[in-house]
């Protein structure tokens, strides 16, 4: 028995499972998108018919433009809020670990729970608006979730609430890794705290920014359960995302090939973000980091 045979043996079942259940089914989906499948999978070749149909569907373009708004706002807000919280916590405050856990907690919930809780909070009939009314401020109005133009921002709010703490933890780890020599030198030169952060600390957090961006970007593309719990795609179709489109077309509209085509495009979108990142990480490992 060579050294390393046992670990390989132990890993092989899960490797096999991943190979079949992940890569096998990716290949299956890819093939399905070139078939005329409707209610059930059919296996004759139909060429790129479902792709041309997909690209002509307004529901798809609406989903894409919603994703643009959602992903842009979500990534920006989560990064900004995460960095802000990390810097505040980094000020050697008391009870730091308590604050850290509080901000991290939302990450422990599933998106379904987050979505449902925020649905109630944002609902003018039971949530925030009603509470403020009952406190006596009658003119207060907050019904974004019922408004076609603003509902997508409600999804952003809930998603940011869920992940900002996690981004904070990443930045905090990054902050702790910054060279203290430089900071002390800057202090001696009489730099103010904000200057130190802006000129010295944040520029050194580049790799953390990249990791956080990759994680947030792929989360944005595959967001599904949050939307379903929060707005179910409504009002109208104003919070449809590609994932909602995929489920609708594959499983309720009996257009499996179109659904498969949309998931292939989503996979390509995620791959475009993640692959370069993985590649650069691999290179680092090869060169000894």
């Amino acid at each position: 028995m060579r050294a390393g045979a046992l670990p390989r043996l132990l890993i092989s079942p899960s490797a096999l499972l991943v190979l079949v259940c992940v890569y096998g089914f990716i290949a299956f989906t890819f093939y399905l998108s070139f078939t005329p499948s409707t209610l059930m999978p059919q296996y004759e070749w139909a060429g790129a018919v479902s792709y041309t149909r997909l690209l002509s569907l307004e529901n798809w373009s609406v989903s894409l433009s919603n994703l643009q708004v959602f992903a842009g706002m979500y990534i920006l807000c989560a990064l900004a809020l995460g960095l802000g919280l990390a810097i505040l916590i980094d000020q050697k405050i008391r009870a730091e670990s308590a604050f850290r856990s509080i901000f991290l907690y939302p990450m422990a919930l599933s998106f379904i729970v987050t979505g449902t809780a925020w649905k109630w909070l944002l609902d003018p009939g039971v949530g925030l608006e009603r509470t403020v009314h009952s406190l006596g401020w009658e003119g207060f109005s907050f019904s974004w979730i019922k408004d076609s133009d603003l509902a997508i921002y409600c999804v952003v709010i809930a998603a940011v609430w869920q992940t900002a703490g996690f981004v904070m933890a990443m930045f905090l780890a990054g902050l702790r890794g910054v060279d203290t020599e430089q900071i002390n030198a800057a202090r001696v030169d009489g730099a103010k705290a904000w200057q130190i952060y802006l000129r010295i600390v944040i520029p050194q957090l580049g790799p953390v920014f990249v990791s956080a961006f990759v994680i947030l970007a792929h989360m944005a593309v595959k967001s599904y359960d949050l939307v379903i719990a929060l707005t179910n795609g409504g009002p109208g179709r104003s919070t449809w995302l590609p994932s909602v489109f995929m489920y609708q077309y594959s499983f309720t509209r009996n257009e499996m090939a179109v659904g498969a085509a949309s998931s292939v495009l989503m996979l390509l979108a995620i791959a475009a973000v993640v692959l370069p990142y993985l590649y650069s990480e691999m290179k680092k490992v090869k060169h000894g980091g």
Partner: protein
Amino acid sequence: MNKQLTSLALAAAMAMPAAAQQLSVEVVHWWTSGGEATALNVLKTNLEKQGVKWNDMPVAGGGGEAAMTAVRARVTSGNPPTTMQSMGYDIRDWAKQGVLADLNAVAAKEQWDKNVPQALQKFSKYDGKWIAVPVNIHSTNWVWANKDVLTKSGVTGDIKTWDEFIEAAKKVQKAGFVALAHGGQPWQEATVFDGIVLVTGGVDYYRKAFIELDAKALNSPTTLQVFQRMSQLRQLVDKDFSGRDWNVASGMVISGKAGFQIMGDWAKGEFLNAKKVPGTDFLCFRVPGSQGTVSFNSDQFAMFKLGGDKAAAQAKLASAIMDPAFQSAFNVVKGSVPARTDVPDAAFDACGKKGMKDLAEASAKNTLVGSIAHGHAVPASIKNAIYDVITRHFNGQLDDKKAVAELVAAVKN
């Protein structure tokens, strides 16, 4: 190694169940709520009396989407259940795939052709073969009203036309109630749409535009008027209607917060569960102007192609579902009416009796049409495209004129 394999094989063999000696049926459905489950139990007992074991496979959620997905996987892998609760064009979609059974032998013996309304047979038969067995007929062009609220608002007498209905609703609104209890979900808006299409264009227009998808009929002033009427209703709902479930909306009528709800007859179950009496506490009438026509949807059990003794059990199940006594018992609970026109109405309440009378009349006069909202007018893909337009219009994303243009485009897609 060999030893291990043998013992493994042995263990596996022991774990295999003994071959079933008894006839059994496997029924996939999504009737998990109290009343529906009770009603289905009647069927279960009837079958077990005949020595057929009932394997219940409830898949909750989403009007059967989850069940559909589960069954799809099983059919694809060559292991279909005996039957699955199914609706309208979905059944035809299954039939197109060539996976459904042929029940003609039972149908001929029990004269289904004579007793099931012609309009419904379109979905129970495919290529001249019976493939599915209808359990009930629901209709969607109903209004449910709280009598007390109407009295307090000064609404008296029968409401016969659309304009009278709008007038009455405005009175209710003025009196400080919500005029129309409505949940802003695409299928609910489409359910309201069913009735308005019938009122505005009548049966012929309904068929031409929404079943034959005739572009000229769709692009006509009648369609514009349909959307104008939808806009009228938009003024009568409360501001928090978006995303509300239908039974919550029924609850608003039951509790006296709202005057009217336009909803299929499954809403009646909510009223009865709240111990309300038809005629005294609440009223049921056809969407004003659509009396004499019925837009229906029907729950059916689609039967999958099986062999041997499974097929024998399936035939027994089919005949048990079509049994008039069962049809009566089930539909009394469900709020719908029997899927055959020869069932006595003695056990039904006032709304149920009216529903049966309307159905028989519509079936005889050929004014019975499949519901647009519930997949009995067009296939799922077109139905959902129509949903998109209706719901965007109702939510103010399209004006009346644009909605007509979008509808024509959506149906083409």
